[in-house]
């Protein structure tokens, strides 16, 4: 990782408890405002790549919108994996069912990886990411 910090977003563009996705030269990053402390994490969930800025941020804990994997944004650590779906919820059409079953088999090998985090600093009202 380089020592360079670049301007990511104006600090006041993210309300406390909020998140915003930014693209920094191809790096997809989500900036989180945890009660005035800013953290930057990779945008893609370590489970199935869902965009995390569409999830929820509670304190320092980010929940993915797709399957509810949870992360600590200060360390990037994955705290819990996806919440398993409910196969008994409703009957799926036969072909879709078979497709989903295949996907399920493939997904069972997927690990929820911890997230990359990036250094942040506040400089003249800007959140800078390094």
């Amino acid at each position, binding site marked *: 990782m380089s020592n360079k910090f670049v301007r990511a977003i104006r600090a006041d563009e993210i309300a406390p408890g909020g998140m915003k996705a930014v693209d920094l030269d191809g790096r997809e990053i989500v900036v989180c405002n945890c009660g005035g402390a800013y953290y930057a994490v990779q945008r893609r969930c370590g489970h199935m790549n869902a965009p995390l800025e569409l999830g929820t941020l*509670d*304190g320092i*804990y980010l929940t993915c919108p797709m399957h509810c994997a*949870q992360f*600590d944004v200060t*360390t990037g*650590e*994955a*705290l*819990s*994996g996806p*919440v*398993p779906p*409910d196969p*008994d*919820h409703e009957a799926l059409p036969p072909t879709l069912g078979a497709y989903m079953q295949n996907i399920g088999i493939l997904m069972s090998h997927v690990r*929820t990886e911890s997230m990359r985090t990036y250094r942040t600093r506040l400089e003249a009202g800007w959140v800078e990411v390094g």
Partner: protein
Amino acid sequence: MNAESRKRSLQYFFEKVVGPLGFKFTPDVELKEFLLDQEVILEAKHGAPFCPCQPLRHDRTRDMKMVCPCIPFHREHFDAIKRCWCGLFVHKDVIDPNTLPQLDQKDVGHE
């Protein structure tokens, strides 16, 4: 996944739910840590932090009522005994949790 980190995050989330219901974590720290340890294990195994003292039925509708904190599904019972079933939570005014027996609902008032 680190069990300690998961415990701390569960504690953070649970506190916010049980507070408005009039409960707090048991002052018995050893019991609290043990029960949270079990819940982390149960979550890793079954997908949610289930109560360590209630049997899973493998029926989603029933089992979801045992996800911690399960207080809302046993409000009357737990308010009567001032604790939840496994004892992770007690009423806010409880100083000594050892004074609270683990009474089943039908035993309340007959002890």
